[in-house]
């Protein structure tokens, strides 16, 4: 097994007084979300409430309006310090699995040296895809492809990991397995994961927020006890699930 690669001390990030308007509709106007260092924060909410939009603001892919503020605990800007994983695996079909994991290096004009290649292989091994390095994405199942995407995200080795419904296109069993792999490999990092699945959030989240309404408001953090990944039949987890569903239905 690979030793944890965390080279940096975990980063904590806060987005506050976030405001965004699309075509005259105010999605949110005074939204605050804290992402504590080294924890996994899960964001739940009904479809269309603005979860993806909030995540895209943090990723630098959407431009927020003033007075939105993104603050990090080390005071430096967030740009260039995030890794992003979407619902689609976004693998490039003409690259091998290994080259897909190394995509970031290629895009930054850095020819991956033997050390980086070794690291990529180790990550593929860690997500359960040892021996598939030379395959093309088309030869993999949906779950395997999303595992490659996870390895690519980890390869970026960034202080903040942003994931937008990364497992929602997968079947239930594959999803449970991937949640376990993700929880293990992301441990110790600052993670924001958007999901519409309360069970998923309860299995791998340290802090859970429910976002509702228009303009949207951020619910208080729910902090389930115990280490992740939590067992599906954990009675504590089931009790929390009822509470989450109630908040989501509000």
């Amino acid at each position, binding site marked *: 097994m690979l030793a944890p690669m965390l080279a940096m001390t975990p980063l904590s990030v806060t987005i506050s007084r976030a405001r965004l308007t699309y075509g005259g509709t105010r999605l949110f106007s005074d939204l605050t979300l804290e992402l504590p260092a080294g924890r996994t924060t899960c964001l739940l909410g009904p479809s269309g409430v603005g979860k993806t939009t909030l995540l*895209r603001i943090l*990723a*630098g*892919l959407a431009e927020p309006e003033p007075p939105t503020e993104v603050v990090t605990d080390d005071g430096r800007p967030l740009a*260039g310090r*995030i*890794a*992003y994983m*979407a619902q*689609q695996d*976004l693998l*490039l*079909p*003409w690259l091998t699995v290994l080259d897909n994991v190394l*995509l*970031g290096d*290629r*895009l*930054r*004009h850095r020819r991956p040296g033997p050390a980086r290649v070794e690291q990529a292989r180790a990550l593929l091994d860690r997500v359960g895809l040892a021996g598939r390095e030379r395959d*093309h994405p*088309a030869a993999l199942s949906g779950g395997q492809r999303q595992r490659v995407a996870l390895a690519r995200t980890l390869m*970026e080795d960034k202080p903040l990991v*942003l994931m937008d419904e990364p497992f929602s296109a997968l079947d239930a069993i594959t999803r449970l397995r991937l949640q376990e792999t993700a929880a293990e490999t992301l441990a110790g990092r600052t993670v924001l994961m958007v999901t519409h699945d309360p069970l998923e959030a309860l299995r791998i989240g340290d802090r859970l927020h429910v976002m509702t309404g228009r303009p949207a408001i951020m619910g208080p953090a729910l902090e389930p006890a115990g280490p992740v990944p939590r067992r599906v039949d954990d009675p504590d987890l089931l009790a929390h699930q009822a509470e989450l569903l109630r908040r989501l239905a509000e």
Partner: protein
Amino acid sequence: MKALLRAVVTLMVLVAGWQALVWATGLPRYLLPGPLAVAEAMQRQAPLLMVHGLTTLAEILIGLVAGVALGGISALLLARFRTARRWLMPLLLVSQAIPVFALAPLLVLWLGYGMVSKIAMAVLVIYFPVTTALFDGLRRTDPGWLDLARTMDASPAAILWSIRLPAALPAFWSGVRVAAAVAPIGAVIGEWVGSSSGLGYLMLHANARMQIDLLFAAVLVLGLFAVTLYAAVDALARRALPWQPDTQPAEDSNP
């Protein structure tokens, strides 16, 4: 293998139909020669067909390579630079409104009776399909890939080179297929307008002397070039895009 068999059967039916037409109409040999007469002319005039065929083949191939290269570079420039788009797009569209074949006499006037004017003609007919195909492909990149690249701190040049261009290659190759189909037409039209060698020249010459069997033989050689060229480009495209799933509709691949 089955495809080859089908091609042979189709060919035989066509030849039989041709022969039947000759018998049914009773047209004299100098108006409509039968397949046998043409085959005979082909054999008898093989050296002549070869010399003129080589000229035309060279024009087609050079025109194809130059046209595809020019079209490819133009599309990349258009995709990469907004200024290039602003200035060149209208020009490109207007140039398409002019029937390029009407320019053939001018090309001969400017570039002479030799191969250069024919190559230029071929380049002109190839340039537009290649440029538009690749440019369209470059514009249609999956926005998810572009988002991912931006979060990875990729420069626009790196995104163009490592994501947009490979993603546009299937579109580019369909442009090259079209180019391969029109290149022979461009070359022959150039030859018709003014030349001293090439299959187009041979056709005019044979026509004037009522050597219709030779004219038919020249057309057949040209057809052979066109089919071979298309097959070669198609094979090349498949080799270049092994990751691309076959886009043949399902009912086509089933017997």
